[in-house]
């Protein structure tokens, strides 16, 4: 029944695009600099709420990697982050007070903006607490990667989410504006990940890491998904379905090899576990705007109160991408 499932997928993709259009009415332009976007520019699409403290480093990190323009959606921040971003020369900013959950956790808003501004560009969809690491990222800009992907006729690039955490209580160290969060959250779980294949959408379903270990020991299947496909040569017909975990058309989810080889892949260093988390967890819990009834934040709020230390004797300290490659968390594939 291949055609039937293809047809169903097509309808879902259409639905996503219509949804994006509907939800686009919730967006108000704060600063539109999209006129600056040139052909072949590499773009970032991101949505955030009260992340002012992280934004300077976020911009710095990705500017250094060669990102040309940032397309951002502010979801009702009240910490000055919106004003800060609006003043940046390479940022286009929209704002909304609408429900995060209602837009499927920001997917609808970003799908709309990507449809409008991302067509035929390499688009990176990341949150402000995610740092994109790819093979040779210490010596080659993202453009080297995207040029290589273009030459290899590859349209999407996978980068799994890797939760970083400090050694000690999460609220023990204070993160300062502009600081590299990896100075604090520099540890990670190197080899406790579980993978299943989603036969409907073809994406892999990766779970594990400290969040599963600490917050979901009794219901490991509820642990958050870590598979992501954040870098895509966008086409206006594409649509993300569930965060950047799944994308349609389904072929874009095939960022892995099934005959024994390794495709090139990267990692998103997830620096969520800073002292900013406990405040956020409480607030998000009240709003109830997160995935699966904010189960994750409920777990954090209780987990952080009871056993706040994610570090264990077997945690690995982050050095560089080569280390992640050797550990088998990412791969160079045939890029050399």
């Amino acid at each position, binding site marked *: 029944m291949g055609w039937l499932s293809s047809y169903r997928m097509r309808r879902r993709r259409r639905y996503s695009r219509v949804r994006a259009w509907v939800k686009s009415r919730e967006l108000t332009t704060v600063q539109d600099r999209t006129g600056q976007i040139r052909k072949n520019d590499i773009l970032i699409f991101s949505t955030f709420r009260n992340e002012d403290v992280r934004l300077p480093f976020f911009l710095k990190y990705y500017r250094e990697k060669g990102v040309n323009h940032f397309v951002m959606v502010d979801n009702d921040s009240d910490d000055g982050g919106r004003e800060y971003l609006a003043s940046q020369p390479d940022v286009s900013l929209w704002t909304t007070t609408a429900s995060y959950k209602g837009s499927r956790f920001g997917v609808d808003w970003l799908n709309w903006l990507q449809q409008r501004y991302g067509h035929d560009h390499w688009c990176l969809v990341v949150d402000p607490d995610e740092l994109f690491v790819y093979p*040779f990222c210490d*010596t*080659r*800009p993202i*453009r*080297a990667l995207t*040029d*290589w992907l273009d*030459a*290899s006729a590859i349209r999407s690039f*996978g*980068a*799994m989410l890797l939760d970083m955490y400090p050694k000690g209580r999460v609220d023990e160290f204070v993160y300062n504006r502009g600081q590299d969060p990896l100075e604090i959250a520099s540890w990670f*779980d*190197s*080899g*406790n*990940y*579980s*993978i*299943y*294949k989603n036969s409907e959408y073809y994406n*892999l379903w*990766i*779970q594990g890491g*400290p969040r*599963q*270990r600490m917050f979901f*020991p*009794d*219901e*490991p*299947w509820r642990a958050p998904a870590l*598979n992501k496909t954040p870098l895509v040569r966008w086409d206006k017909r594409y649509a993300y379905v569930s965060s950047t975990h799944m994308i349609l058309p389904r072929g874009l989810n095939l*960022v*892995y*090899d*099934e*005959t*024994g*080889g*390794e*495709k*090139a*892949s990267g990692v998103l260093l997830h620096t969520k576990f800073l002292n900013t988390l406990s405040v956020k967890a409480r607030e998000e819990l009240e709003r109830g705007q997160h995935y699966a009834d904010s189960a994750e934040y409920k777990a954090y709020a209780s987990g952080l109160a009871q056993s706040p230390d994610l570090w*264990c*004797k*077997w*945690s*690995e300290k982050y050095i560089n991408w080569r280390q992640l490659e050797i550990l*088998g*968390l*990412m*791969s*160079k*594939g*045939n*890029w*050399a």
Partner: protein
Amino acid sequence: MTVGIVMLVHTALDRAEQVIRHWVAGGCPVVIHVDKSVKAATYNAFVASLSDLPTVLFSKRHRCEWGTWGIVAASQSASELMLEKFPDVRHVYLASGSCLPLRPVKELRRYLDARPRTDFIESATTADVPWTVGGLDFERFTLRFPFSWRKHRLLFDKYVEFQRKMKIRRRIPAGLVPHMGSQWWCLTRQTLSAILQAPDREMYDRYFRRVWIPDESYFQSLSRVYSQNIESRSLTLSKFDFQGKPHIFYDDHLQLLRRSDCFVARKIWPHADRLYDTFLGDAAGAMKGSEPNPGKIDRIFAKAVERRTRGRPGLYMQSRYPHMNWENGFSSSPYSVFEGFTELFEDFEPWLAKATGGRVHGHLFAPERVEFDGRQAAFSGAMSDNPKIRDYNARMFLTNLIWNTRGERQCFQFGPRDSQYVSWDMAKDPNAQISVISGAWAVPLFQSNRNFADIRTEAAHLQRVESDHLHALRSTYAKARIRIWTMVEFIESPMEALQNIVDEITGKSVRRLTEAPRMIDLTGFGQFLQNLKNQGMHPYLMGDFPVDPTSGTAQPKPRKPYLVR
């Protein structure tokens, strides 16, 4: 005498210009072919930017699509122009816009002057070299390829299939032996003009027009006809990946290229500023002071291809998730599974650790918790001892454990009480060494202080589970190194069995085991089994245990541990 550069250009014209100026400064005339798909405005600007150089000419433009005749046509036109306009050119070097000269132009000229009659062109017969990707090697020359591979893949494939099925073959022109090789060559005026001015060129061109990827075979085959002295290698360093697409060089390859000892490298990423600055700036200095080590590049790129096609065995990750039986190794390294040993010996784990030097875990798949070595709450890779997390994906629990501890032999206990998800996976895994004492699960029951009815139920259950597991181990799919003893067999000569296992783990040591693990006192076990039988539950997996202790030789004292000298 000098060398003329024929350069095929389609993108990154600014870089091409930089390289052209470098060639010209070194005294080489350059003829440029710009792909017809480049826009007129861009082309004109490019021509204008080079108008100050009298020894740079532009040839007739063709459309160059990969795998088609256009590239050959472009090389032909440009070469003709070169031979006509620059009579002092003795060698013609075919290069692309993304080629970068690594050694000074002077050195290349000196090198070619010393070999005035040599043609440098990689050219091998298809029968001898399995270079090609996609299965089209000799068929490139015997089938027709009117459809574009890039744009009309389906038509391309269908037409190939059709020709195969109908056994349609093209005739290869008489006297021509198909050869293939790198498209980047350096030919002498004599050979090149012989090819271009041959009386039957028309015939050859017509033939090659429908050959697949003629730029890798046209000059390569025809030079075999006309050349006096072929050196079958390319002066251009060019590496290809598993899809036949060239590897690209970046700034971080600088040291590698310095030591490559090649004249020209391809292909260079247009934004590799450091490479361009270094090699076009002061090329003599760039190469100096480093030992040539051209093999290193080969190794790096060969490794990349291997990683892409075969991957790291036993690794499951976001970009390597093989189908079942395509893993090229279920696990990454050998490990040992012991079934029934901890039940039979009191101190088996520490004993085994001492005897083998490996990492010895308890029952990793125990229902209560993961019994890591030392009963730690977490283990290598931050694996949790939580049984629910383990059972959520037991296969990957096992492969993760083996992957995380590469370099250290893992041994663990297994038995019918444990969760059985990985039973078949272990049986099918050649890396697994599985040693089973069947029926030993009855010993803890025998020692337990439980109601007999419960024991009977439990025993029946365990026997059924172990029997299923043994079925997997004995199936034709089993690839592990498997040893199965019944309990009775094992007890007869335990040291010999243990010695075999330990030898296999440590790799045939001549050392004899001097210390034996302490066996549990089995007095009364026979009667225990008989009781089970009397209750209608026949325990058969342990073999024929002496039923009645009084019928055998009565042992008044408890058994002493085995000691082998």
